[in-house]
């Protein structure tokens, strides 16, 4: 294992994780809003925001799927040391991390069952940039309408149509984070 894998975690785990979780919760509760999330310095190609989300939410209880570029030795070692999350394929993961193109097709992820819709995957999507423009969002957490630079439209419409089943998304870019729960209705602007 490379010694770099031991670095880049939260300096003050309890308080840093509390701040990071507040950002993630506010993002999930208010789809389309952008939040700063800091404290982690994961190895490339992960963004600091994606690293902080992993440190805040993942541990030995959460199978993790690393997709595409994210599935490299540096990231595997870092995830193993800091979270202990077991790595798995898309069909059995609780969390998945990667770029949008690498994560597809979405049909392979668990979407929950009618009795337990919470047993579904959360996808952490790495983006080049995040802005509050683009697709029009409506639904719980949004007063009138919000906008977010989503990587697509149709996939998210299909996901919302399965409510209460479905996937939930975190979008990360640099030290910024936004979220899109399955309850949000998505349409082209």
């Amino acid at each position, binding site marked *: 294992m490379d010694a770099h894998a031991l670095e880049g975690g939260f300096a003050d*785990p*309890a*308080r840093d994780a509390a701040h990071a979780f507040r950002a993630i*919760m506010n993002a*999930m509760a208010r789809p389309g809003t952008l939040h700063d999330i800091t404290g982690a310095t994961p190895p490339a190609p992960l963004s600091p925001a994606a690293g902080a989300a992993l440190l805040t*939410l993942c541990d030995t*209880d959460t199978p993790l799927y690393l997709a595409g570029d994210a599935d490299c030795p540096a990231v595997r070692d870092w995830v193993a040391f800091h979270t202990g999350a077991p790595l798995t394929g898309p069909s059995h993961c609780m969390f998945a991390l990667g770029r949008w193109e690498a994560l597809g097709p979405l049909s392979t992820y668990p979407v929950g069952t009618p009795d337990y819709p*919470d047993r579904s995957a959360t996808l952490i999507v790495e983006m080049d940039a995040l802005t509050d423009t683009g697709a029009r969002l409506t639904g719980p957490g949004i007063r009138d309408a919000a906008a977010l630079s989503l990587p697509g439209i149709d996939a998210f419409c299909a996901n919302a149509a399965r409510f209460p089943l479905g996937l939930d998304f975190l979008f990360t870019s640099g030290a910024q984070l936004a979220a899109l*729960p399955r309850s949000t209705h998505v349409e082209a602007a």
Partner: protein
Amino acid sequence: MTDQAYNFAYLDEQTKRMIRRAILKGLAIPGYQVPFASREMPMPYGWGTGGVQVSAAVLTPEDRLKVIDQGADDTTNAVSIRSFFQRTAGVETTTKTAEASVIQTRHRIPEEPLREGQILVYQVPIPEPLRFLEPRESETRKMHSLEEYGLMHVKLYEDISRHGHIATAYAYPVKVEARYVMDPSPIPKFDNPKLSDNPAIQLFGAGREQRIYALPPWTQVASLDFEDHPFEASKADHPCGLCGATESYLDEVITDDAGGRMFVCSDTDHCDTRQAAGHRGKDAA
């Protein structure tokens, strides 16, 4: 001063991660009860172990915490939970609704409208609204998945046939975003309209029953009713004896053995603020 013998906000980090994941799924599926591995807390079940665990998972060091029990900041339960987090998380506390960023509550929603950025954490005894109609968890879970809520309407109808009106006065069932029927915890039905379209994040924690559920801001929440018997938010038809408020929810307080009684605001912060502003009721000293 934080008690260094404990982790920040008492719970260990793995437990907090588990609760945080449940909160996120709860926010993604408004009104759905997410199972979680509730921990033993240093207080008995029924004293707010669910709310305390949710609060511990969301608190940050910069938060200002308010805890109310039936609207009051000065009851045993509220005082103990406030000092618990003062000691284990080192957070500031307050009794002012407007100054608080996190409010843990037992059985009330504050009178003062909440604002964006605030978090309201409810202590929930029985999270399943169908539990007293159907005792089997396997069946109620199936009823939720099939959206089979006829039994709840039968219960409300039986209220009407027996009493002439819907007699359920607290824990009045609601439907969230036209999908899940949810127990709003035993808040008076007077508070039900405040659940809907609220700018704050509302989180519900049931410790003994091991369930977490949530309402994101601006979520549509409708109290169940019938066209010919519409929902009505009711309260005692009196002004507050101390501050004279006519719009707030009132507690009836027995004052002697001869039938003497007075009505006072259940929300102590609301009542104190009004009295400080010079409002006086008929029983004010």
